[in-house]
């Protein structure tokens, strides 16, 4: 091979450089996202369950939200009966965020003030979505509730 040594050395350096993050992080424990479920609305619940089981919600909340959207906006079905037969109103702001928003967020979202920066996701959504770098566009239109615990 013409200039073989240089090519092989360069290749080794290149591969080492590319795989550096992998070796650098090897063996270190992955902290995972820090999901805060400790909101007052959740603490008041006797049966601490979301509209479906945690496993289902973790894996399928996006499909469920899409189904809710279709049923509510397009088919006029505003009530969801979960697998245990319990009814829930289909509303991102009034049902989901009644539990999944912190006191600070409720205080910040008093409404009335027109603030383009309000399209930040609630901490509950952001904790996982920032971790996995999945951007959600819900909050460019929807608001966190003015008064979540009605």
């Amino acid at each position: 091979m013409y200039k073989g040594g240089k090519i092989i050395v360069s290749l080794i350096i290149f591969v080492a450089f590319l795989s550096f993050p992998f070796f650098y992080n090897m063996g270190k424990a992955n902290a995972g996202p820090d999901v805060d479920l400790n909101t007052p609305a959740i603490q008041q619940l006797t049966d601490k369950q979301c509209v479906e089981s945690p496993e289902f919600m973790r894996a399928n909340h996006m499909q469920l939200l899409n189904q809710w959207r279709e049923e509510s906006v397009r088919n006029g079905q505003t009530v969801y009966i979960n697998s245990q037969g319990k009814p829930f109103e289909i509303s991102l702001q009034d049902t989901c965020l009644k539990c999944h928003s912190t006191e600070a967020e409720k205080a910040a979202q008093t409404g009335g003030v027109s603030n383009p920066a309000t399209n930040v996701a609630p901490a509950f959504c952001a904790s996982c979505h920032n971790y996995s770098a999945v951007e959600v566009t819900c909050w460019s239109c929807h608001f966190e509730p003015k008064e979540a615990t009605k």
Partner: protein
Amino acid sequence: MSINRRQFLRRAGMVAALGLGGSFIVTGFRGKKVEAASEYQTGQQGLKAKHWAMVVDMSKFKTEDDFNRVKEVCHSIHNVPDFGNPKDEIKWIWKDDYEHTFTGQQNKYLEEHLIDAPFMVLCNHCENPPCVKACPTQATFKRPDGIVAMDFHRCIGCRFCMAACPFGARSFNFRDPRPFIKEIQPDFPTRTKGVVEKCNFCVERLAEGLMPACVENSKGGLIFGDLDDPNSEVREIIGTKFTIRRKPELGTQPSVYYLVGGDEHA
């Protein structure tokens, strides 16, 4: 070692079958639980109808305040922005003059109270909505109760519907509307740049058992009800009084009727 064509095809087929079968087993084990045992229902307290329609009683719209009151309440509860210039204007319900409201009926020697009067105009929720036909994503669709509704999630901002609508009932968000909303109403979502919007006959209020906001604040100037119900107030007015609709010659069959007699429920 060299293989012939037959052996190659056989091995390739086996690998492909293994791959497909393997992926099925893995997904089968994981169990896609998207279809959870659950169902959907309509809310109990919602108002239901076969064909929602509105009568605009022009005898009740006399002063500037009559128009503004209705417009203000609609635009504030639906987070309609005010950009302050007519080019970007977003409007759900507004007033227009006779000439532009009833374009097919121009007669310059018409009664003065008609020719000079402004009219309350909004989306007509046509029985034959051209906007629904034009929409390539079905973001605009006709509900079974006659309301021409919009799914803002699906709107791609092509504005075909605006070109199709003969009544100019649709507005486009050329800019981000959020900074231009005077007072944000958190109960209703805003829109984003690049989305078309229009009157929705207050579907979100009907679902809660409430009449549309404009009707509640019109002091009887707007009458709302089920056109398919022979005992409804709208049906009674349309059946007994002389009402006109906008551009009936186009065949879109608007659901908004104008009572123009001039007297009390003329």
